[in-house]
């Protein structure tokens, strides 16, 4: 490069720090002060599924050796203290998945998105929703959907991991503050009678809407009717939910101090990014500890977007084409994410729960629905996956569990196994052929 004088040369490093956003945020960025609780009141089977986008640098993710005594890979080094509490699983994938950036759409469903004739996109129920259905009567909130952009996203670019029984995406929450309010802030109409009245009124309104839908449905064509049925079912589910809420009316929401929660962190601000993941995991921890919910699907970043701890263009890096410099940067993002997982496992491991630890009754599934490959190809095979916790539920951790990436049981087998450990009494899910051996 041509520098126009020594002055400019001296000033050069400043350029890096010059964007206004970095100037603003560096003043505010602070590590979280949040501390986990010593005790959890009661053990319940729980599952949290944590998804990161754009795959990983597979060279640095995948351990070179297998079995219990495997050597931790560079990316997973940060999880060293928990090595007896997790299993790295390699070689698995959803046989019907197309790969590319649609990984989040099928990560928990295993669906063949092109399966239904005449439809561009058909998804099916995700495993978290199967489990949520088992526990929904026992918790205030059946399951949480979290993501770094609210809503459900478009087909093949899902912002949510969760799909209901008709394959309809369940929209995600991205704001820590709104999530906190939903979990822990008492409803405005604190007057019991008024709240009951409101529920009552909402239910009679929904009743009326159902009647109306039925009448309208009779006059529609077949496909129209299907569309309307989706609405009808949603209305019905909402009515059931309100019905369940009536049961919770005398149970106050748990009292949780917001003091150390950085609730204003913004998911898509490069400098808040690290704080945002922290606070969302802190809220997940609190939601489970207070038994507000037992099932969480948390998409840390959308596919084809997102960054790690700073302003990296994670998506661009995933198209590394085998370039060593890009691969190194990609591994940096992977280590950043792994360190967030480590912090979350620290919480669960340090919280006592009866004679055991909260980690023992909580299963953490961590991984991606895409493999960014050795040459930057976006493959649905040999996904980066890790399962932690759940020993008290019957999971056994066996170090690095390696499957052949061409001939392996479907990933749904793993999902089914995790569901069975968290209370699902079924041996069927998606394309699963049975429980996954080697982990229980």
């Amino acid at each position, binding site marked *: *490069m*041509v520098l*126009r*004088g*020594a*002055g400019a040369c001296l*000033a050069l490093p400043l*350029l*890096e720090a*010059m*964007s*206004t956003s970095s100037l603003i945020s560096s*003043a505010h960025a602070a590590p979280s002060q949040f501390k986990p609780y010593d005790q959890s009141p009661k053990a319940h089977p729980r599952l949290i599924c944590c998804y990161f986008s754009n795959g990983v640098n597979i060279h640095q993710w995948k351990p070179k050796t297998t079995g219990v005594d495997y050597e931790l890979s560079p990316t997973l080094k940060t999880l060293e203290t928990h090595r007896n509490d997790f299993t790295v699983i390699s070689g698995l994938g959803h046989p*019907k998945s197309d790969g590319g950036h649609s990984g989040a759409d099928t990560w928990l469903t295993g*669906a063949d998105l*092109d399966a239904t*004739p*005449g*439809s*561009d996109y058909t998804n*099916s129920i995700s495993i978290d929703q199967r489990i949520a*259905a*088992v526990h929904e009567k026992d918790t205030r909130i059946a399951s949480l959907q979290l993501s770094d952009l609210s809503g*459900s*996203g*478009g087909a093949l670019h899902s912002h949510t991991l969760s799909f209901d*029984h008709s394959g309809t995406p369940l*929209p995600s929450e991205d704001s820590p*503050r709104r999530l906190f309010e939903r979990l822990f802030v008492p409803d405005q109409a604190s007057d019991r009678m008024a709240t009951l009245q409101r529920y*009552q*009124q*909402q239910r009679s*309104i929904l009743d*009326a809407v159902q009647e*109306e*839908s*039925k009448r309208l449905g*009779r*006059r*529609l064509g*077949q496909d129209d*009717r*299907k*569309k*309307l*049925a989706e609405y009808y079912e*949603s209305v019905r*589910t*909402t*009515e*059931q939910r309100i*019905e369940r809420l009536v049961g919770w009316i005398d149970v106050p929401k748990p009292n949780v101090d917001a003091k150390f929660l950085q609730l204003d962190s913004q998911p898509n601000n490069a400098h808040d990014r690290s704080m945002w993941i922290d606070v969302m995991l802190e809220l997940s921890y609190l939601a489970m500890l207070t038994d507000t919910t037992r099932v969480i699907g948390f998409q840390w970043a959308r596919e084809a*977007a997102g960054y790690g701890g700073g302003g990296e263009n994670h*998506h661009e890096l995933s198209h590394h*084409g085998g370039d060593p410099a890009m691969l190194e940067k990609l591994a940096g993002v992977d280590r950043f994410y792994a360190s967030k997982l480590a912090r979350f496992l620290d919480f669960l491991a340090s919280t006592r729960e009866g004679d055991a630890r909260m980690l023992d009754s909580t299963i953490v599934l961590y991984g991606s629905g895409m493999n960014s*490959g050795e040459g930057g190809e976006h493959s649905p095979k040999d996904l980066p996956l890790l399962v932690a916790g759940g020993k008290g539920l019957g999971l056994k951790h066996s170090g690095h569990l390696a499957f052949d990436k061409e001939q392996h049981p479907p990933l749904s087998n793993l999902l089914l196994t995790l569901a069975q450990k968290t209370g*699902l009494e*079924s041996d*069927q899910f998606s*394309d699963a052929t049975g429980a996954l051996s080697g982990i229980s």
Partner: protein
Amino acid sequence: MNLPSIGYRTSIGVKATGQAFRVLASGGFLRIGRCWIFCLAFFGCPLRSDSADTPTLPIDQAGYEAIVEPLFEEYCTKCHGPDDAEGDFRLDNNQLGLAFNQSAAAMKWREVANVLNSHEMPPKEEPQPDAEAVAKLVDWVRDQQIRADQFDRKNKVVLRRLNRNEYKNTIHDLVGIDYDVSRFPQDPPAAGFDNNGRALSSSPLQVELYLDAAQAILDEALVVGDRPGVISWRFEPETGDSDSNRVRYGEYNAIVNGGANRLDGNTRVMHHNSWDRTINARDFAVPIAGTYTIGVRAGSIIPSRDEVVRYAERVIREQRGKEMIEQPNRRNWIEQHLEEEIDYFRKSRIFDYGPGRLRVIVHHNGQPETIGEFDVDASKDAMKEFQLPVKMITAKTSITLEYAYHIPPELENFAIQRQDEFPRPEVMIDWFEIKGPIYDDWPPTSHQRLIDKPIPTVEADRRKLAQAILTRFMPRAFRRPVSPAEIEEKMILFENAASSIGTSSLTDETFISQIKAPLVAVLVSPNFLYLAEPYRTASTDTLTQFEVASRLSYFLWSSMPDDALLRAAANQELSDPANLISQVDRMLADARVSAFHQNFAGQWFGLRDVGSNPPAEDLYVHYGDHIQTSIVRQSLALFDDVLRNDRDMLELVDSDHEMLNEVLSRYYELPPVKGDEMRRVELAENSHRGGILTHASMLTTTSNGTRTSPVKRGTWILKNIFGTDPGLPVANAGDIAPKVPGIDKATVRNRLEIHRQLAQCARCHRKIDPLGFALENYDASGRYRRQEGFGYKGRIEKADPVIDASGELPDGTKINGVEDLKAAVRKNDALFIRCVADKMFTYAIGREMLTADSEVIDKVVATLIDSKSTPHRRTLRMLIHQIVTSPIFSQR
């Protein structure tokens, strides 16, 4: 199958084998708690039917055997057969199947017809079938497709849910409330638009949100009691420059912080943006939620070029002078470059300053919302008050003013431009204030429109009033006449509410909370939330007048029909094409048509993606927030101009005029324009601009942030200009290589050419890449370049490779650069017009266009092209006229 709970017994475990959903074996009432739950099988008719219930498409086996099979066997199955299975595409043994109504099969057949038609297959070196046989096969495929479409027509989804924008606009027109729909989940687009009935799904969360929204909308619309008191709090930023400056407002000791900005009399002067340079008022809350106005009294100080050069020259001479003394051996070198450094400030367009610019941010519950950004178009001596409306809640809040003028931080200026003495546009702030809540009247119009007279205190009269309210409201909400039975049904909710609230007190308040029950029910009714077009008789597919009115208004306004349109429907006027056309012209002249620009053109041109992967700020320093909003406005303005002024629609692509404002004229390095509003400017020869293909909106969304992507650009042009979908890459195709062995400075083009050497990639990329290469003179931020930069942070150095924008189109035309590309579009104008027509039909009807529709669309396109002698026929308005008077529009 294991059923997790009784409520979920519908469709768990969709069989992935392509089998239809299983029908329920049984259904009936299930009693759970106090609530009767309705099982789905009793939902009028079976909702998901087994294939046995549905008549299947009769297949044309004989036609296949006579026309297709011989050709396949002779020319195709050698490679596309059991031995080779080239591209996973087998044609032996009728592997494609004849179920043309299934999208997987239909897509493959379309591909077969396409490659045969365009002589892509069989490969050139193989024996070729004769043209007549190919034509016969292609016609057969097309006939099969039309037959399948017609067979399925009655089953195609047209029932569509209002999307977020439509909901917002409809609520605005129906109730008079601006509801913030950003809490609703994003609507997924399909076939390019987010008003596609098939893709718009519903979930329980949505129902909950609709319920909440309806309640909130009515809470805001209907009021009780006297007009609330108004606050008017003015913040004087000169009173302090730290958070310790507390000033009393209402019950709050608010922080008023003028920041590290200099004082000039009793104003604060903002020089640049940094974390300690904002002006803000924090730690207070407004007493009542509602609409408020934020006012800012401000002016701009715009330094002249002379001032800039004088300052830069002084600083540079001082600094270099010192350096020459300290490093005598570099003296000559420094001296040589000194003039060059100063010259930069004399010449760079950056220093043709415009007025200062301000961004206003309000925090609601900790979430920041930028409520406006504007040029401070007022001088120091004639400061002006700028006003912005904002919806406030009663949580703790803050107002922040941020300096928003962007001087691109080029290497030559960044060290100097942040110095406080450097002459930059400055913004003077006298004061800022918040006033409100604002009502247009008391009770507000929203209230008066629903409840138009005093609320009586006699029970029977109250019932009558409720009936009158619903009788007025429901037909507008449902966009059609409503039967007395439907009103009576809602009256039950009114009465139920009375019994739960208790009718002992017949006050205004109880009436309003009572009437909200049926009104909420109307706003969560499927008749409101869905554009439903029920069948009346089996013999006709023609829509009712009211359904046509709704199609029209959601097409052009993304909102409900207005009274004039509903009246026309009631008078049966909309079956007359002349009336339809005059309605269209009336609607196009209405301000609500901006929704059409935003939603149709905005999605066609991909404007919603602008900024989602923006040019990297360290590489493309000229790009910034103001540019980002301006490039979107530019493309919308182009569409508006071509539509409103009845220009030839080819001007969307190729024009010697361009829509510009001040910052864009600088950004594109065109002759200066003053002011922030977009206006039409004539372009000089070789301006490299004119038309959507030269807009930074399109050019940035088809780049990767750090580099251009000729593939994305080529695909964009194929899809959005020529109307062909190049399809998806083959599995595991990978991306282009970041480096090319043997080439030190490998351009994007070099890197892509490596990729194209793979046979499986070449077939499609031959179509895509030349189109993208033609735009290689535009960098990833949409600025014009002659070379690809390999210097520090992408700067262009002398020896960097010169852009090669040449290529050959599939038809053999050689092109070089954007002008040739535009000429190619002009030459293929029929393709372009067909593409626009196809997209607009899709948007207007809310479903994908089928092969069966193509006859009608072809006719429309022919009408537009036919009269080249009167070029005014090729206008967007004419296209809209043609669409609304076509049978596709008036039939379901």
